């Protein structure tokens, strides 16, 4: 099943959409492939010579990526190349690991996220995150979405906010009658969309996604990809994926990482960063070409 979808997709290069019945139909109106991102989009996040260390271990070496507003930026590369480390340093999730250390600078709207007066808690509210495995709280669907706004002292109507967030995450119709039920009763794909709703409920302007579909089946994956395409009208999305087709389908720009094995350490570094169409059709680096054509990794 998985192979069929992907093969079909690649062969026709026409995006697919789930119809109401849940079966897969080929349709035209939405171009899921990023295509031609607008260079006039403002740079909202600037990663400038970012290094990530865990204790003595040098995980990522000098990564520089400008991330533009309302685009989907994909980070791809073989496992262990540090793409997740980079993603987690953007919302200072790495702070939670005792030994983690980030060097270089990450500027968000021009403000250095690692500045001395910056509160990582505040950063995470503005830069939301969706994790590899769906991780809803063991609480009701409603509480899952309302938790973030509640702790941020959201002043408006919570019911409306929950509904709005669930609608944006394309989950409202499926859960509107069971908001008080446990989030654990949902399917994996629904749980992941709930996590997306939870992430956007705090009205962030950037959403980080760490392999958001890697534990889902192909149909659920497709729904998440479609959702990302919708979300990018409003949010800036950075996604880590090990699925190249996924990066090609959804992202506007792609950063390809690789890993150097030298001196017993495995240090990841950025090989190439460009528009997704260019990177996949006409890579500048031979390493990139090897990877996307399957000769490596």
């Amino acid at each position, binding site marked *: 099943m998985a192979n069929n979808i992907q093969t079909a997709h690649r062969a026709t290069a026409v995006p697919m959409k789930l119809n109401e019945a849940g079966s897969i139909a080929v349709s035209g109106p939405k171009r899921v492939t990023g295509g031609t991102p607008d260079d006039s989009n403002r740079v909202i996040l600037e990663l400038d010579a970012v290094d990530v260390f865990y204790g003595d271990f040098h995980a990522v070496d000098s990564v520089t990526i400008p991330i533009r507003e309302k685009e989907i930026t994909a980070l791809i590369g073989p496992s262990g190349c540090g793409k997740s480390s980079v993603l987690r340093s953007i919302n200072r999730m790495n702070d939670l690991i005792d030994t983690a250390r980030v060097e270089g600078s990450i500027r968000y709207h021009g403000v250095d996220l690692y500045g001395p007066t910056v509160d990582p808690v505040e950063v995470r509210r503005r830069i939301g995150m969706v*994790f590899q495995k769906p991780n809803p709280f063991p609480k009701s669907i409603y509480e899952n979405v309302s938790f973030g706004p509640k702790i941020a002292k959201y002043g408006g109507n919570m019911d409306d906010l929950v509904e709005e967030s669930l609608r944006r995450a394309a989950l409202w119709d499926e859960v509107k009658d069971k908001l008080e039920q446990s989030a654990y009763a949902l399917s994996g794909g629904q749980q992941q969309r709930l996590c997306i709703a939870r992430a956007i409920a705090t009205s962030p302007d950037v959403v980080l996604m760490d392999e958001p579909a890697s534990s889902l089946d192909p149909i659920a994956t497709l729904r998440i990809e479609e959702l990302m395409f919708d979300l990018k009208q409003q949010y800036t999305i950075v996604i880590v994926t090990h699925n190249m087709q996924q990066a090609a389908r959804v992202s506007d720009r792609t950063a390809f990482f690789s890993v150097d094995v030298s001196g017993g350490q495995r240090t990841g570094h950025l090989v190439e960063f460009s528009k997704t169409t260019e990177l996949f059709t006409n890579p500048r680096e031979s390493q990139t070409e090897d990877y996307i054509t399957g000769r490596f990794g």
Partner: protein
Amino acid sequence: MTAATKRREEETKRQVERAIGRSGIDWTSVWFSGALVVLLLTTLSILLVLIADILMKAWPTFQERGITFVTDGLSLNPATAGVFTAIVGSVMIATIVAVISFPIGIAAAVWLEEYAPNNRFTQFVDTTVRNLAGVPSIVYGLLGLAIFVPLVRALGLGGSSDGKNVLAAGITMAVLVLPIVVITAAEAVRAVPYSIREAGFGVGATQWEVIRSHVVPSALPGILTGTVLTLARAIGETAPLLVIGVATGYFAPAGDATLADQITGPYTALPVVVFSWSRQTQAEFANTLAPAAIIVLLAVLFILNGAAIWLRNRTEKKW
């Protein structure tokens, strides 16, 4: 197919059948398994004999006295002596234990698991807790005798017992069970998957908000199980109480004793009554009253243990 090949195939088939068929009995295996069953049954029968023996000894008391054995207080007359005074003492001690050791123990566990940096000092604290859990209970009695009894006296709460009261006993027992509360609570907190914490941090919660809203609620069943077992331990302990001067003989609580008098005055507890009755010179105390007191004590403990097991089974959830 020639007759020869057919014969050879038949022969092979017979050989394979012999090889993989059951071949005799592996006596070592039988012996070993049999020994295990015997050992298990022995362990179980010890429990059975223990309970049956004590129930039989206690039976006459319950037959003659019925519920009055539980509602009567201490007495020098075996015909009217009951465990009520001891139950009051045990309940008061357990209450003090819960009030002191639960908040401190759970907070310490949360600190160890959630806040403490992964360094040598934290390891030292962790090791200290584990070592304290292994200190013999009578040593805690000496601690109570040297520190908590004088402390209660110094605070002016010594009352008619000169500090040998449930306050000193409660503090001593609270300190005794504290490491157990920490260890069981820490285990429960550790069992909460990291992804739930990540989810909390991911939407911009502070550490305390993550702990209060997600970690502690998820760990609560495990924490409760631990605390219930801890209470059982505190109720069953005898030795430290003997050292810090629990009344092992008869004492007469005044008929109009206020709660304050009961708290600051002399006291006894369920296990202590078992001990002191078992060495009374009047035979009835040792032969029938002590076993009856044991049954009351075991009933209380089995209810607590049952509650803990029920809590654990009810909440063994999958993440």
